[in-house]
């Protein structure tokens, strides 16, 4: 009997085209949009070697130090353990430099003199770095004069050698599993969390089909000689199976086609999906039993609460999750969508499991809570008439 109901519920869900669209096709489309829109986003914060021009004037030709300085940075920062090229310099005439700047071929051009002058078209990080590099030249010059003022013998004692040596005074210490965490992964994590909660529609449908006062089919089912819990369990398990297949499909697409990074903990990522699906379905069931409004209203509650929860987890604006976490941490803990997102995030970026375990624990707690409420509301409900 159980298997019979289970199989028929499976067929019913699969044949419900709108439901499959919203829980499978729509997330796939949205993932594609996310990918297309965000794939270039992290690129923009990367440092790129910029083109600059140096005006070929008399002072420039006279100063060997400045020429060396340009050469040194143009070839790469001659540090012991760093060879970062900061710019590619071309030595050209003043008119040429102006023309190049106007045509956006260069970020700026530098004219050697006292003080050194830098001409740029806009303010930005590239320009600021350029300024810092040339500041460094004048500032070091000032340092040297200052030292010679106070200790004229410094030149004989290796000051020039010291000048050549540019020591790295910083040492990279990586925290977490990534040296360059990609903020856009959060969008995909919220998308999966959203999909899990769209599965709430499955839960809602199961309740509508078993609770006698909600649909005619359920009323008929209630007079059948079968235990209601059995029917509901079969239905919910069928929903869970379909949702797992769908979410697996979505995950495969996101991981293998879109190549979004989920960290290396495949088993735990899967566990998160399973708990997420269970939580989503039970949430749908919960919403469905605690109010007696029409099915349209229930769907609306489900969708609106899911989307609000998604917004608070950063689906529309990535920093939202952090803002909530920082200012209203309790809201992050009672928002199951945020818990799923955060579980993925913890697997992606943390090298410890505490945060992940808290998330999964809370999610499981919510699932149990939703199931229990559903059970206690539904059990022993009998009707003389409907």
């Amino acid at each position, binding site marked *: 009997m159980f298997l019979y109901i289970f199989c028929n519920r499976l067929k019913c869900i699969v044949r419900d085209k*709108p439901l499959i669209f919203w829980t499978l096709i729509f997330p796939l489309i949205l993932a594609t949009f996310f990918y297309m829109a965000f794939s270039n*986003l992290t690129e*923009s914060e990367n440092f790129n070697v910029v083109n600059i021009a140096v005006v070929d004037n008399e002072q420039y030709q006279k100063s060997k130090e400045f020429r060396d300085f340009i050469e040194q940075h143009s070839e790469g920062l001659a540090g012991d353990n760093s060879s970062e090229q900061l710019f590619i310099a071309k030595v050209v005439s003043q008119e040429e430099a102006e023309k190049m700047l106007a045509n956006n071929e260069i970020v700026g051009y530098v004219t050697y003199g006292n003080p050194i002058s830098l*001409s740029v078209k806009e303010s930005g990080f590239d320009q600021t770095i350029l300024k810092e590099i*040339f500041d460094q030249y004048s*500032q070091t010059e000032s*340092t040297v004069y*200052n030292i010679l003022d106070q200790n004229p013998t410094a030149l004989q004692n290796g000051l020039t050698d010291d000048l050549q040596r540019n020591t790295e005074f910083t040492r990279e210490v990586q925290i977490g599993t990534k040296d360059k965490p990609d903020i856009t992964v959060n969008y995909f994590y919220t998308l999966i969390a959203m999909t899990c909660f769209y599965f709430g529609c499955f839960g809602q449908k199961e309740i509508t089909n078993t609770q006698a006062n909600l649909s005619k089919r359920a009323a008929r089912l209630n007079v059948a000689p079968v235990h209601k819990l059995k029917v509901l369990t079969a239905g919910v398990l069928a929903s869970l199976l379909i949702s797992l297949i769908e979410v697996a499909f979505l995950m495969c697409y996101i991981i293998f086609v879109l190549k979004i990074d989920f960290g290396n903990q495949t088993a735990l990522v899967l566990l998160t999906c399973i708990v997420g699906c269970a939580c989503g379905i039970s949430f749908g069931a919960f919403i469905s039993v605690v109010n007696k409004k029409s099915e349209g209203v229930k769907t609306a509650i489900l969708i609106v609460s899911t989307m609000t929860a998604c917004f608070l987890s950063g689906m529309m604006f990535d920093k939202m999750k952090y803002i909530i976490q920082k200012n209203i941490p309790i809201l992050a803990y009672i928002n199951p969508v945020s818990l799923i997102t955060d579980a993925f995030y913890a697997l992606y*970026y943390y090298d410890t499991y505490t*945060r992940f375990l808290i998330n999964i624990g809370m999610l499981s707690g919510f699932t149990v809570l939703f199931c229990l409420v559903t059970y206690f509301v539904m059990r022993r409900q009998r009707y003389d008439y409907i």
Partner: protein
Amino acid sequence: MIIFKTYFKIIKKQSLQLSIYVVVFLSLAILFTYLGNDNSIETFTQSKAKVAFINEDSDTVLTQGLKDYLADHSVFVELDNNTEALQDALFFREVEYIAKIPAGFTNEFMSGKPVAIDKTMISGTVSGIYTDILINKYLNSAALYVKNLKNISQEELVKNLKKDLEVETDVKLLKNSKGKVEKTTSIEFYYNFSPYVLINIIVLGVSSIMMVFNDIKLKRRNLCSPVSNTSYNMQLLLGNVTYSLACWAILIVLSAALYRNDFFRLNSLYFVINTLVLTITILSISFLVGILIKSRNAQTGISNVLSLGMCFLTGVFVPQELLGENVLAIAKILPTYWYIKANKAISNLTVFNWSNLSQIVYYMLIELGFAIAIVSVTLVVSKRNQLKGS
């Protein structure tokens, strides 16, 4: 005008669903208005990275000097010194560079031993490299002093460094040939964002009507009513146009209310015109959607996919400069791409002469071109449907 009246009865029934989009849009617009920072720059300003400065050494004059120097060139972020808090902040780019000064740093530095500050940054980013340059510059100069002036005190060292680091390059900000430095104002943001709400409410509204009136039984009954076919179609068209214009007008009124200072500038007039042109294009899309779909489920599906697709791919949600080349190539076949381009040109307008305006008009004509193309397709499809007798 029975059909015209029926039109708005149907819209009224949909009003809850439609108003949700307006409310969501408005709250997002307000949120981003407060979050977005208006930085109109006329002189050269140095960019600043978000830096967390954690000192595990004792508070010495040297570390204080370094901190002061960094503070002038970066935005300091206060963070708890625990790994999770640092990680979260780094992931969400609340901080871009974490400099941790190890215990005993000052003593070893002053005695000339090789030392280093622990840095955690998002590797390869501009802001990280910039901060790295700042720190290395400060400490390299300091090392020069320490090495060449024996027994220099920390106070003297920091004083000397401070003086040296005041020497600066003279930066000339040459004006853009186009006029001025680019910036995104709140009102531009509002208008950039409006396609999302316009597409949703117009497509949902108009296609609901079309679905009702295209229902085959209803259509047959209407055809034998004494209302002439022309009048019937004209009333429907009038209804559609009125509805779309009303949606457009609501957006304009809201923008006038939200951005009182910016709205009464000449630029806003062009925003308004551009939005009107887009509204016409969206209306034509709605016609097409209306005759293609058969059920309410398909309707919400299509309106969502259309609005999200057009907004994600063309620069409504993510600025066009941040989109990849491939995406932009696809975006060019969508009207919102040209709408955003026009908006951008409008917000950069300072001189309202024809050579500046012609570009904007050109973009708007492209949007209208889409409208004409889509209406043609719609006519073909509807003719075919008629011939099939449905």
